[in-house]
């Protein structure tokens, strides 16, 4: 590092300069460290769950402990890993670079969002350390108010606080995208990752407040005895489900839209070809965000909701699958007549397309009213959403992380190890979660620590897959750290990609660009496999 001009990592080195930094790149790294920590906690819970389920009897942990484990797994993974994962790390780092902005529109709000996230995470971890929560991540009523003996209030307040992190991040991204685009960067020249982050941000800003209100009502009922959801106090349990899923279904798109955006970057970058149907891919993100608000009732087909509501929600759920299908077809068509390279990020993108397709198609099973009656609340649902969120979002997160790792750290990761990890992750994932589709179809309910012996073989396969997956997730942890010290120095544009972020140094200087680029063309311009950068004056 000596001799080279200072970059954002070397500009200042005190602890204080990190903890009070308003640089979006440094805040992204703070988020990286925090979500990795939460991913490890959530993953540890998953390991214990899969161990318990190797045998039909409940013999590893007590039933109450098991219930706390899957609650902890869900709460941590949804609110402290998946929701913030891509936006606050890769989004935070890359969005201003893609727009050639100096920073996000509100740098101090960005820092505040991290503190909200940490405060919320601390409260939730405290709830877990004190004895945990046994409600499941959905906090269904009246169980959560009247029957749970866990630290529900504390955990719920933690989630409530972390919600402000979501709202502030969403707000920041929306304003940044509107106001801080480089000269010449029109809306249809925006990289597709920006389109999907923008759509995600709209959901973050509109849906998270509903969750906040809902959680406060839960606290009011549990602590003050105000009857809202508990029928014993004159409340309505279905009201909870409506309000909870009004947030939590769009939250699924919070978790997967950024991943879709990353894949839309990776596919043209490694196919070395203009993306097929740019406008359709871009507007499909917006369509998913919009229709995603209108499908929450598909979580309640057997919950006692009206027949007609169920019919409408089923139809709308099929409708929201259309833009997802459009994306998949466009990615595949992009490969046609490309110059395809198979670096690790592209392997993750391939894995994503396959797993997201299966995850999406199995969503059609659940949206079919009659089939949902049988498979809802079984392992079929568990398998379905893990295909979307782990097979989809986590694969894309790793793909994006490998893709931008040279930009973030200035170092190249070891390609061979990275490809091995990507392939192992794909097989480990399928071995873990495909058997769960079969289990669900056979009728194995969720949230069971003990089960009839005829289900065992599928649980054993799933647990074997989970250990494979654990190894695959551990590998990047090692070789990424290795690369920080021994990795080769990265050039500004190691992939030959076209976006603005590749025009500045790796790692970028603190102010991102020495000269503001003038954008002259769309984001994925390749001629005969050769990149033409979006700007040429840098």
């Amino acid at each position, binding site marked *: 590092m000596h001799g080279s001009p200072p970059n954002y990592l070397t500009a200042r080195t005190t602890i204080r300069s990190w903890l009070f930094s308003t640089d979006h790149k440094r805040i992204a790294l703070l988020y990286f460290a925090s979500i990795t920590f939460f991913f490890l906690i959530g993953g540890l819970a998953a390991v214990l769950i899969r161990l318990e389920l190797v045998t039909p009897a409940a013999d590893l942990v007590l039933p109450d402990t098991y219930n706390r484990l899957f609650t902890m797994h869900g709460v941590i993974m949804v609110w402290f890993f998946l929701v913030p994962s891509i936006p606050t790390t890769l989004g935070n780092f890359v969005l201003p670079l893609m727009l050639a902005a100096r920073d996000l529109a509100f740098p101090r709000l960005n820092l505040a969002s991290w503190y909200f996230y940490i405060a919320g995470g601390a409260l939730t971890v405290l709830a877990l350390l004190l004895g945990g929560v046994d409600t499941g991540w959905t906090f269904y009523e009246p169980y959560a108010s009247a029957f749970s003996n866990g630290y529900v209030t504390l955990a719920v307040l933690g989630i409530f606080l972390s919600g402000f992190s979501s709202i502030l991040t969403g707000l920041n991204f929306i304003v940044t995208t509107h106001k801080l685009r480089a000269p010449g960067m029109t809306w249809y020249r925006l990289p597709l990752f920006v389109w999907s982050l923008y759509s995600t941000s709209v959901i973050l800003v509109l849906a998270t407040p509903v969750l906040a209100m809902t959680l406060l009502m839960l606290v009011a009922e549990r602590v003050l005895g105000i009857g809202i959801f508990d029928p014993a106090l004159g409340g309505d349990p279905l009201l909870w489900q409506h309000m909870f899923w009004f947030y939590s279904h769009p939250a699924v798109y919070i978790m997967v839209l950024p991943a879709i955006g990353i894949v839309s970057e990776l596919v043209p970058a490694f196919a070395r070809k203009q993306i097929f149907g740019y406008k359709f891919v871009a507007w499909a993100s917006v369509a998913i965000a919009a229709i995603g608000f209108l499908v929450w009732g598909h979580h309640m087909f057997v919950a006692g909701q009206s027949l007609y509501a169920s019919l409408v929600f089923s139809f709308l759920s099929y409708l929201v699958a259309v833009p997802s299908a459009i994306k998949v077809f466009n990615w595949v068509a992009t490969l046609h007549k490309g110059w395809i390279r198979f670096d690790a990020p592209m392997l993750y993108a391939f894995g994503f397309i396959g797993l997201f397709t299966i995850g999406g*198609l199995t969503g059609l099973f659940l949206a079919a009213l009659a089939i949902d009656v049988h498979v*809802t609340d079984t392992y079929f649902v568990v398998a379905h959403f893990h295909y979307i969120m782990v097979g989809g979002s986590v694969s894309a997160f790793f793909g994006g992380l490998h893709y931008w790792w040279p930009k973030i750290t200035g170092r190249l990761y070891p390609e061979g190890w990275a490809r091995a990890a990507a392939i192992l992750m794909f097989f480990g994932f399928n071995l873990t979660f495909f058997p769960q589709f079969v289990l669900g179809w056979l009728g194995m309910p969720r949230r069971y620590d003990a089960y009839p012996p005829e289900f065992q073989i599928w649980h054993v396969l799933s647990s074997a897959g989970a250990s494979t997956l654990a190894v695959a997730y551990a590998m990047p942890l090692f070789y990424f750290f290795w690369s920080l010290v021994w990795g080769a120095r990265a050039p500004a544009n190691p992939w030959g990609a076209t976006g603005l972020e590749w025009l500045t140094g790796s790692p970028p200087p603190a102010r991102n660009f020495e000269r503001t680029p003038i954008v002259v063309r769309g984001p994925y311009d390749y001629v005969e496999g050769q990149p033409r950068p979006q700007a040429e004056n840098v």
Partner: protein
Amino acid sequence: MRGFPVWPVEAGHYAGEMDALFIGLVIVTVLTAGFVCFLLIFFAARYRAGHDADRSHTIEKTWRWEVGWTTASLLIFVGLAVWGADLYLRLYRPPKNAVQIFVVGKQWMWKAQHPGGQREINELHVPAGRAIRLVMASQDTIHSFYVPALRVKQDVVPGRYESMWFQADRPGRYHLFCAEYCGTDHARMGGWLTVMAPRAFAGWLRDRGGQQSLAAQGEQLFHAFGCSGCHGPGGTVRAPDLNGVYGGPVALQDGRVVSADERYVRDSILMPKSEVAAGYDPVMPSFAGQVGEDDLAKLVAYVQSLGRKGAG
């Protein structure tokens, strides 16, 4: 371990039709995912960097393709939605002649009461070939009555009746689960649905018999709780006569007309002021907290029997 089961056992009802829809969805999934994977691998191999392939004439008019696959997806999806909804609609509406069994879910057991007064816990015996309608209530939190072999499931939300129906055709013992998380022993809240040939079932009922019918037990409660003082003949307060009420329309004081089903009877016992019959004063006290779900079922069965009496 017991082998590699891939298909759930089937006890009749709509299980066959459900399985057909499921197979239809599997075919759509395999064809679509297979097609996508095939193209991914084919393009990846053919157009890999460094491989000499014809890359001239790349597709320029993308909108034709977009319109094509958007329309195709939409049509297939709407078709599947209609197929799933049609079956659901039939699942939703019980036939008129169904045998009615009251089920109460509580942490962590299922209790059933047959019309003849027979009671069971974590077991449910039903005759093959007869439509069975379950009227279900929960005493605490949400539970979900789930029999995979029948492909049916219904959440039981506390504070109200939920109902579901099925007709099992194949005698046998089938898993009964609770499918909605309900606390410590959620995984142990369940047992067996036993489907018996009609003759065997009649024998089972006889062996279990000796009690009064559910309606007769309800009649005793009707007197014990003092309901008969007003609703019975010669009551001192003006209250509706319950003969012939059940199953018909009831005109309410606020102008609405509701159907006198089990929900109405239950709500009228627990929340008598919410739906007062037209022409009567709202003087009935609430019995919430005094009558448990088991007794409510008996009272409802009694009022049902009065309804039939009046109609007949």
